[in-house]
Structures are given as C-alpha cells and as structure tokens.
C-alpha cells in the first residue's frame, strides 16, 4: 500500500441557524481545501462525504452528487457514508484505502450537517434513530440518555462518587469552552465555570445542559493524495499512518463490557498497530466529546488513562496544551460544535493544522506536535480512529 497524505483542508464556521444549505457549506469547505492544495476541481478523482440527516433537516438526500456538480467536479464518482456522528471519519478511512491501494491519486473527503434547522424536539427524535429503534427507543432512549446511563454505570463500577465524577465532567466542558474561545470556527466563544455547568438545567440525569454538545450547522473537507503527488503539492504533508474502525450493537447487547466501549478499543488497536505507535506516542488528540462523560470514557479506551481514572487527567490539567495528552484543543464537539456529518473531517482538519504548527497565532498550538489521533463515535457503537503524523 502507498502512503497517503492530507494536502489541504477547509472548514466553515460552526454555528446555529446557518443561512447556507448543506451543499453550500460543504462546497465552501471543499473549495477551500482544493485551493489550499493548489489544485483545481478537475484534479479530484472521487468524492467521499459524510452527511446524516439532510433529508430531515432540509429535505435533501444525496448531497454528494450535488456537491460534485456545484464545485465543478463534473460527473466523478461521489459516495456518501452514514455512520451517524462518525460518518465523515468513515468516509476518510475509505478514501484513504482507495488512495493507498493505488486506485485514485487525489480525492476529496468532507462532511456537512444542518441539525439546527430541525429544532430540538425533531433533532432529538432523529438522533435517537442511531440507537435501536425496536428494542430501546420505545423506552424513550435518546443519546444523552445513553451517556447518562454510562455515567451512572461508571460511577458505580469504578467507585468514583457521582459528585466527584460530575466535577470531573464539568472540568471537561470548562476546558473545551476555554479553547473554543480561541478557535475562530467554534460555535461558542464563551468561557464557562464548573459552577455554571453544575447549575444548568437537567437534560437527563446526571447530564446537565453544559455536559452536552450543541446541535450545529457546518461543514469541513480535506484533500487526500498519494505520497508522490502530495510532495509536489505541499511542503507540509501530514500522513495518515494508521486507521481503525469497529462496530457494536445496541446498548443492551454490550452489557458486561459497559461502560467501556469495545468498538473503540478494537478500532484504536488497529490504528496503533498499523502505525507502529502506541498511546504514549500521541502528542495531540481530538476525541468524541459529545457529552462530558464521553471524553472521560474515551481517554481510557484510547489508552491515555487507566479505567476509572480518566477524569483525573482533567483534574491535573494533563489535557491542556503542555499537558501529558492535550485533548480537544479545538474546543471539541462541546464548544467548537458538532454538525454530525462533518465532525470527523473537522477533527482531521484540526489535527492537520496542529501537526503543521499553524495554531500559534490562535494561542492554542501544541508545541512540537508530530503525531495526532482522531477519535469519532457514531451512535452507540461505531468508532473510527485515525493516526496522523509528519515526517
């Protein structure tokens, strides 16, 4: 297999109530990625997209074909990947494999979503479609409820008193808002405090409003190319060194393993083994913090903390720039926003910029970062991981 690099990236502002359509947002991010790669649309050989609820939010399916036509990539193969919130990362992994195999030299990958157009009740309903519709939705299952049940399970299993766990969770959100302030693409530019998190209205116990990421509109895109092509286009190629993906069934089917998510542990193992690296080699990580407790569970599954001790990383400041494992220096899903079909491409955009050292001016550069990890969760059990590195 050939080495594959990220050449250029594009990212819209993440926001509430975008005046743009999903195709428009993705076309803007895509053209930025193509221009940043010193390419023209005619150079793109195939398109891979993530988009989840375009049909519900604006009555638009098949955004990939309209994107191709809009940006002047006329008639090329364009495919859509659906893995709930991990859709774009799934698209990236597949795009990577097509380039690595030699089938294509240059491809475009991106994702887009306009969840806020649905409003909270319909968005809550449609997001719940990525749980089991027959055996779990009838009980009123929602995504916050999944992670709320994970939080109570975590507290019990690891004997972390709920009060302490809630403070750790609050610290996760506080840090995300801190870095979101510095990210011009972020949905929220507002500092919050632990007290503010702990006094928010209860969404589903024990998750309060600021434990939860927002509904968001936005898009992100990247151009991937084979190593030889990438070296001609940029002097800062960021290589995809490892990829991993795994799936799981409904929450109850994961029973004894919970609150751990086996799919993450299997996916990241694939990525680490492929890259010949381990958690100790990761300089910066963008992980799937859809809910504050999800971050704590994720750092453990990715190998950055012992099980039951993930929250201590935030208590000790180890997740900040300069810490042992900087996490979500973009603001994460919590503050940057979570347009679900776009999130994986946004995470890759962020890690690419970190590894290129482009975030000094924004005051959130992880000094000397050479290796980065992307972690994206879809529904109650699809996980995709990517490991990026520079030479």
């Amino acid at each position: 297999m050939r080495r594959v690099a990220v050449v250029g990236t594009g990212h819209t502002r993440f926001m509430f109530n975008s005046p743009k359509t999903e195709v428009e947002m993705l076309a803007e991010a895509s053209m930025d990625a193509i221009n940043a790669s010193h390419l023209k649309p005619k150079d793109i050989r195939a398109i891979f997209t993530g988009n989840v609820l375009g049909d519900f939010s604006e009555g638009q399916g098949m955004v990939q074909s309209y994107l191709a036509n809009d940006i002047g990539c006329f008639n090329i193969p364009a495919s859509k990947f659906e893995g709930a919130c991990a859709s774009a990362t799934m698209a990236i992994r597949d795009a990577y494999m097509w380039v690595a195999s030699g089938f294509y030299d240059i491809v475009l990958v991106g994702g887009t979503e306009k969840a806020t157009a649905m409003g909270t009740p319909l968005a809550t309903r449609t997001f719940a479609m990525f749980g089991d519709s027959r055996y779990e939705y009838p009980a009123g299952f929602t995504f916050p409820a999944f992670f709320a049940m994970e939080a109570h399970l975590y507290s019990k299993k690891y004997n972390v008193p709920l009060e302490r766990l809630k403070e750790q969770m609050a610290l996760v959100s506080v840090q995300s808002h801190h870095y979101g302030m510095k990210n011009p693409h972020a949905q929220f530019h507002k500092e919050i405090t632990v007290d503010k998190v702990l006094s928010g209205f209860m969404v589903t116990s024990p998750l309060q409003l600021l434990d939860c990421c927002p509904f968001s509109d936005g898009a992100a895109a990247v151009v991937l190319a084979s190593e030889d092509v990438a070296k001609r286009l940029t002097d800062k190629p960021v290589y995809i060194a490892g990829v991993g993906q795994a799936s799981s069934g409904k929450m109850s089917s994961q029973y004894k393993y919970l609150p751990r998510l086996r799919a993450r542990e299997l996916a990241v193992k694939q990525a680490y083994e492929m890259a010949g690296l381990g958690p100790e080699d990761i300089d910066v990580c963008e992980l799937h913090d859809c809910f504050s407790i999800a971050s704590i569970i994720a750092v453990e599954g990715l190998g950055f903390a012992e099980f039951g001790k993930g929250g201590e990383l935030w208590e000790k400041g180890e997740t900040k720039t300069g810490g042992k494992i900087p996490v979500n220096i973009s603001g994460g899903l919590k503050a940057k926003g979570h347009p679900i079909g776009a999130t994986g491409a946004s995470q890759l955009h962020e890690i690419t910029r970190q590894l290129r050292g482009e975030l000094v001016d924004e005051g959130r550069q992880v000094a000397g970062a050479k290796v980065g990890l992307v972690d994206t969760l879809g529904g109650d059990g699809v996980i995709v991981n990517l490991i990026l590195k520079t030479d």
Partner: protein
Amino acid sequence: MEYKLDFRTYSDALKKNKLLGLKCNDCGTFTCPPKMTCQECAGTDLEIVELSGNGEIVTFTQTFVAPQGRECEAPYTIVMVELDEGPWTMGNLIDIAPDKINMELIGRKVRLGHKVFPGDTYSDGEAARPLFSFQI
C-alpha cells in the same frame, strides 16, 4: 435463514407480560432482546424461552428532554436491568417518586410489566417495551 424469534413475536408476547428470549444450545447463554445469533458465541442453535422477568437495575437515567411527539411522557425514567438469566434489557421504571431517583436505584430488584409505545411517523407501528417496578 429465518429468525427464530423476531421483533413482532417478541413484542406481541410482551404485551401479555411474557418476556421471550433465546437460549443457546451450544454455550447456554440467554440472549434478550432476541437477535439472529447468540450474543456470546454467535451460535444459531437457539430455542425460544420465557424469561422470569426478574432482575436488578444496573443503571438508569431520568430524562427531562424527550424526543418529538413524546414530550408529554417527560420526565420519565429509563433503566437498564440485568435479568436473573444474565442478559441486560432496557425499559422504564414506574412506582418511584421523582426525588428518589438516585444512585441507590442501582442494585434494586425489579419485576417485569409492559407498556406499549404506540408508534410515531417514523416507527413502523407500535412496540411494547418492559416496564419495571420494584419487587416487594
């Protein structure tokens, strides 16, 4: 290959307070909710069994923000119950004061009832789900 126990059969039985599951004749594991293969060994030599409906709460949440069409149900309590036969199943909890919903719920013994979700625009009809209450 047909399902030994499909959703419709499971739901219809639950409407009579019978919780059906599958017992694996290869490894002895009980699988519930049912699926095509054994949850542990992927075996297909399965037989339909009626589970006791007794178990204990392993985790829970009290939900205040309901999905579209279900606002009138909120707040409601979702519980994950480990059935005496081993599998976990999701349902709702009744007979509890809202201010008593806390970590003390974990480990409480419950027994099965049911409630029918009548369905909505997206659900292809109704679905029964377990409705748990405390064992006396």
